[in-house]
C-alpha cells in the first residue's frame, strides 16, 4: 500500500517541490532503463562486482597472497581450488575476488578525475569565451589528437610504475572528450533566458557555472563516463599486463594475465580466467552505458 502511494507520488505530473521533481525524473529514467534488458544485465554484473569487492574477505576461500609451492599450477576444480592455482600455488579465485577491489579502485579514481577536469575546462572555456576559450580548446585538441595508450605509457615511464600513476596517466589522456562535450553544452545553455534571468538577479559567473550549468551537463557526462569505463578498464589492464600498473604480488587482473602468459600452452587457465573477468566487467559497462544513453538522451542514436 505504502509502496503504491510512493509510486504515485514519484509519478506525479505536477511536482510539489524541487526535491520531488528531481526524484520523480530519476524514477522515470529508471523505469525507462528497466525495460532495457541488456542494460539490466550490465547493471547486475556491476552490482555483483561491487558486492564481491566489498565482501572480498568473506567470499574468498583462500588468502590471495599465501603461496603453496607444493600445489602450484593446479587445474580448475582440484584440491579445493575452484579455478585452480597459479605458478606460486595461490588460489586464482581468491585473487580474482580481491582483484575486483583494484579494478573498482582504478575505475572510481579515473571516473572522479577525468570528467571533473574535463567539466572544469569545458565549462570555463564555454562560459568565458574569447581568448580563454581559444587557448583552452586548443590545448584540449592537442591532447585529443594524441595516441592515448602510447602517451599513457610515456607518462607511466616518467612517473614510475604503480596503480596511482597508471590512474593519473589514464586520466591525463581521458579528459579531453569531456571538455569538448561540456563546452558544447555550456554554449547552448549560456544564451538561454533563465541564465540571463539569474544574471540580472546578480549571480556571478562562479555561481552560474557551478549551480546552473554543471547540473545540466551531468547527465550526458554520466553516459559518456559509463561508456568510457570499458576503455579505461582495458587500458588499466593493458598497463598492468605490461608491468606498468599494479605491482606484484597485487592480484590485478592484467598483471595476472601477464603472469599466466608464460604457462599459456600447458596451463591455460592461469591467463584465461582473469581475462574473462576483465571482459565481463568491461562488457557490463558497455551494456549499461548503451542503456543509459538510450534512457537519458535518446537523440543521438548509434554513435
Amino acid at each position: 500500500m505504502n509502496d503504491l502511494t510512493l509510486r504515485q507520488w514519484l509519478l506525479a505530473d505536477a511536482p510539489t517541490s524541487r526535491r520531488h521533481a528531481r526524484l520523480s525524473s530519476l524514477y522515470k529514467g529508471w523505469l525507462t532503463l528497466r525495460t532495457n534488458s541488456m542494460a539490466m544485465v550490465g547493471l547486475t554484473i556491476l552490482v555483483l562486482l561491487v558486492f564481491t569487492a566489498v565482501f572480498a574477505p568473506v567470499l574468498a576461500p583462500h588468502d590471495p597472497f599465501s603461496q603453496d609451492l607444493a600445489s602450484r599450477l593446479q587445474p580448475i576444480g582440484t584440491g579445493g581450488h575452484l579455478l585452480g592455482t597459479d605458478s606460486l600455488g595461490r588460489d586464482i579465485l581468491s585473487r580474482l575476488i580481491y582483484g575486483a577491489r583494484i579494478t573498482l579502485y582504478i575505475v572510481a579514481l579515473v571516473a572522479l578525475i577525468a570528467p571533473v577536469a574535463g567539466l572544469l575546462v569545458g565549462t570555463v572555456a564555454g562560459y568565458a569565451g574569447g581568448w580563454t576559450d581559444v587557448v583552452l580548446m586548443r590545448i584540449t585538441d592537442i591532447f585529443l589528437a594524441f595516441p592515448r595508450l602510447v602517451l599513457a605509457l610515456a607518462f607511466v615511464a616518467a612517473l614510475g610504475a604503480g596503480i596511482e600513476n597508471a590512474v593519473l596517466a589514464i586520466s591525463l589522456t581521458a579528459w579531453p572528450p569531456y571538455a569538448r562535450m561540456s563546452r558544447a553544452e555550456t554554449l547552448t545553455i549560456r544564451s538561454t533566458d533563465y541564465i540571463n534571468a539569474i544574471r540580472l538577479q546578480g549571480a556571478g559567473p562562479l555561481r552560474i557555472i557551478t549551480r546552473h550549468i554543471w547540473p545540466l551537463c551531468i547527465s550526458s557526462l554520466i553516459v559518456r563516463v559509463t561508456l568510457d569505463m570499458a576503455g579505461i578498464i582495458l587500458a588499466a589492464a593493458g598497463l598492468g599486463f605490461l608491468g606498468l600498473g599494479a605491482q606484484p604480488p597485487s592480484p590485478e587482473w592484467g598483471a595476472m594475465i601477464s603472469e599466466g602468459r608464460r604457462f599459456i600452452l600447458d596451463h591455460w587457465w592461469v591467463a584465461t580466467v582473469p581475462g574473462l573477468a576483465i571482459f565481463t566487467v568491461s562488457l557490463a559497462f558497455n551494456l549499461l552505458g548503451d542503456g543509459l544513453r538510450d534512457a537519458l538522451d535518446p537523440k543521438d542514436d548509434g554513435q
Partner: protein
Amino acid sequence: MALAERPTGGRRSAPLIHWIKSILKTLGTIAITMLGLLFVTFIIGRVMPIDPVLAIVGERASQSTYDAVYQQLGLDKPLLVQFWYYLWDVLHGDFGNSLLNARPVSEDIARVFPATLELATLGVLIGIFLGVPLGVIAAVKRGSWIDQIARVVALVGYSMPIFWLGLMGLLVFYGVLGWVGGPGRLDIFYEDVVPTRTGLILLDSAIVQDWDVFRNALTHIILPAALLGYYSLAYISRMTRSFMLEQLSAEYVITARVKGLSERQVIWRHAFKNIRVQLITVIALSYANLLEGSVLTEIIFSWPGIGSYITTALLSADMNAVLGGTVVVGLIFICLNIFSDLLYRFFDPRSK
C-alpha cells in the same frame, strides 16, 4: 578540383580566398598540435626521475666530467632554450642515441617501423572488407538477426582486452590446432633469406617470388592481423551502419524507390555512394588507432615493431627511445587525424 571548374557567375575569387584561408588555418592547426605533442614529450623527458647525465657518464664519473656533459646536453640553459634545442633536433630527425645500444633512435625506429606498418595495414584491410559490408547489411536489415549479430560482434570487440584475445588465439590456433605460425614474423629457418627492400616481408618476398617465405610470413601475420582487423571491424561496422541508416531514411532514397530502382541500386548506387567520404575518414581514424593498438598485440606475438620497441625501451628506462617512439607514433596519429579531417572538408560539399 571538379567543383572549381563550374564557376557560378563572376564570384570565383571569393571561394578561392576562402579555400586558401582554410588551408592556412589547417596548416596552423597541424603546426600547433605537433608543437604541443613535442612539448609534452619534452616535459615528460624532463620530469622523469632518471638523471640523463648519470645515464651517460656512469655513477663513478668525476664531478668535472659530470659538469661537462651537463653543459654539453644544454641542461644549464633555461627550459625554453632547452625546448628549442629539442625541437631543432627532432625536426632534423634526431631523437638522440639509445642508452641501450648507443645507436641513433631514429635508425632503430626506421628499422622496426615496417613491421608495424605491415601488421596494421593488413589489419585495417581485414576490417574494411568485413566491416563495411556487415555495417551496410545491418543497416538495410535493421532489427533482423543479422543486425543483432553485428551488434554483438561489435560490442564484444569493444569490451575485449586485446592482449588476452591474442593469447587465446595463440593458445587455440597455434598451441592446440597448429594452424598458424607462432610468435615472430618468420620461422628462424626463413629469416634473412629474402633481401630487405621495403621491410614489409610479404612484399619483399613477393618481389623476388620466394613463395615459401611468403607463405611462412603469411602464417605468422594472419593471426595478429585478424585480431587487429576484428577491432577495426567493430568500429567500422558500427559507423557504417549509422551512416547508412541516416542515408536510407533520406527522401531521395524514397524517390529512388518510387522510381522503381532495384533495391540493390538504391543501396549501393545511391545511399552507399553518399557515405563514402564519411567512411574514408572513419577508416583513416581506425588505421591510426591500429598503429597505436598494435602495441599490446606486438608484445603478445613478439612482433618486432614499434610497439615492442617502445615497451622494451620503457622497461629498461631508455627514455630517448621511449620519447622518440612516442613522437613518431604521435606524429603519424596526428597526420592521419588531420588527413581524415581535410578529406571530409574538401569532399563533402555540405561543409563548404
